[in-house]
């Protein structure tokens, strides 16, 4: 499955990119699965996603949890806890 991944703030800086398109294996069913799969890609991802509690996600621009299904998602975002306002 082809998926657009976007990264923000400290996560974007650590990964050195604001986004990428990836071909995701069929057994990656949830946001949590996707984080685990990304961590296995290389050291930069492993480091960026190491502290899972500090990474938040959104699926198609709606806040998501680790158990949220990717289903037919087009865009998944990862970012640290928000600090606006």
């Amino acid at each position, binding site marked *: 499955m082809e998926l657009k991944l*976007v990264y*923000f*703030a*400290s996560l974007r800086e650590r990964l050195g990119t604001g986004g990428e398109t990836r071909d995701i294996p069929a057994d990656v069913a949830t946001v949590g699965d996707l984080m685990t799969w990304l961590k296995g890609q290389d050291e930069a991802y492993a480091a960026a996603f190491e502290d899972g509690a500090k990474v938040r996600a*959104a699926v198609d*621009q*709606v*806040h998501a949890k680790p158990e949220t299904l990717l289903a037919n998602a087009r865009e998944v*975002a990862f*970012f*640290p*806890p*928000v*600090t*606006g*306002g």
Partner: protein
Amino acid sequence: MGVRVQTDDFDLNAEVRALTAGRTDIGAVVTFTGLVRGKASDRVLASMTLEHYPGMTEAELQRIDEEAHRRWDLDATAIVHRVGDLRPGDQIVLVIAASRHRQNAFEAAAFLMDFLKTRAPFWKKETGADGVGAWVDARESDDDAVRSWG
């Protein structure tokens, strides 16, 4: 009812007037303005950069705004949030809640800010007077504030 994300500054009078002009049913208008502080945990700031998630930001602010209208009888609301580079003393965010009665307006404005702080995808990076940049950490008290609304 209007949510906006912009680099430009905003004008409090103009934003309030846009909601109240020509109306005589509104009895109470509460505004909240957030400003860049010159010191953060004893660190002197030179500037602050606000990053956001275009598309999701507007959608999330809209969802927060709709939730406020579900919870309170409101005549009008507005949310304006700036992004980009800001300096100490600059305005960051404006929330307005207008209602017939003051309690609704106060509660809705506080609610909008609490939810904006914990749900709207904005991130602040502070640059110190020493030139060192650091992402702002989320505060637990903000999560507590959101939970208090049930």
